[in-house]
């Protein structure tokens, strides 16, 4: 598959969003979060030690600082003329390939949740295969052969991670059938 064809296919799943409006929306959400967290500081333990300002003192300082920064961005956006950018040299739009983004998120989420019940060996091989397979097959003249390589590479990566992290660094990987220690 050529890059151009690939690009055409991907474009259907690509969102192009206005930069300024997106910054404003995200900043407003962060500002809301800061205000909520500031309210949360009222539930924190009062100071007991003489001189110690209390658990809520530093978070409040940080949150007030964060709120000032967020408000500055929003005020700047309101004062700027329509069509101009918030910062110099910034593009007016940005693109996000939402399908690819979501796929990666879902794969890693499933890996995290299923790692313990299913086992490290299967989950790692499946994750690597799911990520490597389509990438190696795309742009290849022999997709089947590339998929075969992807399987081999996934198995090798799982073995390498097991030896490196599990055996040498003694990290307690949730293993399904591989031995936790090798005696020699």
């Amino acid at each position, binding site marked *: 598959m050529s*890059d151009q064809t690939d690009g055409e296919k991907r474009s259907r799943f690509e969102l192009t969003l206005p930069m300024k409006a997106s910054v404003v929306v995200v900043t407003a959400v962060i500002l809301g979060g800061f205000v909520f967290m500031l309210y949360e500081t009222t539930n924190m333990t009062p100071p007991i030690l003489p001189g110690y300002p209390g*658990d809520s003192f530093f978070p409040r300082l940080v949150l007030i600082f964060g709120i000032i920064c967020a408000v500055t961005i929003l005020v700047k956006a309101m004062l700027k003329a329509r069509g101009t950018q918030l910062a110099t040299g910034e593009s007016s739009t940005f693109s996000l390939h939402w399908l690819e983004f979501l796929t990666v998120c879902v794969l890693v989420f499933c890996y995290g949740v299923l790692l313990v019940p299913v086992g490290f060996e299967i989950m790692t091989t499946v994750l690597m295969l799911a990520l490597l397979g389509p990438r190696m097959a795309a742009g290849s003249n022999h997709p089947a052969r590339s998929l075969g390589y992807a399987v081999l590479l996934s198995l090798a990566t799982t073995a390498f991670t097991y030896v490196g992290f599990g055996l040498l660094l003694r990290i307690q990987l949730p293993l399904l059938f591989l031995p936790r220690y090798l005696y020699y």
Partner: protein
Amino acid sequence: MDSYLVDMVAALSTLNSLTIILTMLAGVGIGIVLGALPGFGSSQALALLFPVTFAMTVDQAVLFLIAVYSAVEYGSSIPAILIRTPGTGASAVTVLDGYAMAQQGLSHRALRISLYSGVIGGTTSTIIFIIAGTSLGYVALAFGPGELFAVGVFGLAIVGGFFGKDASRGFLAVGIGLLFATIGSSGFGGLRFTFNQAYLLDGIPLVVVIIGFLAGPEAFRLLVDNRRTAAGKAVGNRAEQKERNRVTRADVRLLIPTWIRGSLLGTLAGAIPGAGGSVGALLAYSEEKRWSKRPEKFGTGIPEGIAAPEVANNAVVAGTLVPSLSLGIPGSGGAAILLGVLISKGVVPGPIMFQQQGDFVLTVFIGLLLINLFLLIVGIVGTSTFSLVSRVPLRILGPFVLLLIVAGAYAYANSYVHIIMVLVLCAFAYLMEKLNIPVVPVVLAFIMGPIIESNLSRGLTITRGDIFEIISRPITATILVMALAAAIYSFVSNMRQARRETQNAD
């Protein structure tokens, strides 16, 4: 003087042993490998290798662990430069220019600058220690809680103001990082922002934040923008590439002032208990930018941007040993483990050690000079191998970076929760970068947050809540004024640039 010479001869004869040399070489090799793994900072590496020292003599054990310590600091910058995945907080600063340079097809050059700077930093700080010795330990102790608080604020003023295109977005990122740092136990018995979730009781682990915010967006870019096929843009034929990747005499001349400043700052940061590599690297980078004639080029892949944090980062190692050996105060987690090894072997650190076991102290520091030499040799040999990573097609590299991130997050506490945490942070950081909100200030603020807060709280407790008594101390006041000036300057500079662009457009 005579006793100094006797100690020196004794130290040299101890080091003139094949076993000791092989032990140090092994420490360097293991340290580079561990440092290159996300989540394995010097403390983790030393803790992991602590049991290995049980069968060693005290000289062997200390030199082995110091070799690991030094090599971890260098090793962590390799993935930071090649795949934007720093192994430690200190090398997070190296990402800025190191990765940018690697992206221009100059990964070999970036690795070499990092190596030379690291070795020079380590060597210079060791020489400073041999000359200045215990007096430096006492100077460092002049930095009380108020001064450390001010140093942290100054660092963040630089980080927030000068990263990215818009200072207000940089400072917003600083706010987010500081807020993340307050999650969990307050250190004074209280809990903050845990929302009754057990996994938040200890806060968000540093390793999760580092790899989530720095390596995460890169992994997503590699996976999502998979049409790109090569890492660095290889420009020209092989001979041209070799020429472009060389570190020339002109580079060395350019970097000498950077190395001097970075070495001094790194040694000082190491000598101050609690400051450590992250503070040293950040201070060195900020100062370099302040002194530079081309501050706007920082972050685009310039040699000074790599040399400054690397030289300071490695200078911290000998600096950390100053309060550890001379006063018995560990300057970092790694130094605490080293002290543990010394005590377990019957050596009691403190001023008396310098009088009664001068030969041992000199063995450690001359050994550190040798370790830096070994690091240089191993690094030169290894650079070509490490830079092979830049030839791997990006769409293939992406899954491996993602697996490294996931494995690093899991390895921290063998918990799947950290995988989910790192995923959330990766996605958030990726979107932040899309919106030109810089992510590096988040990480640096997260690292500096506890240092700033604990020192502020300690200072307030000592002065019974009188903040003016803290900020009116001469060193503290000077640093805070510098921080304020830096923050104001960043906004003024943004406005000037905007005006200039508007005039050009007209």
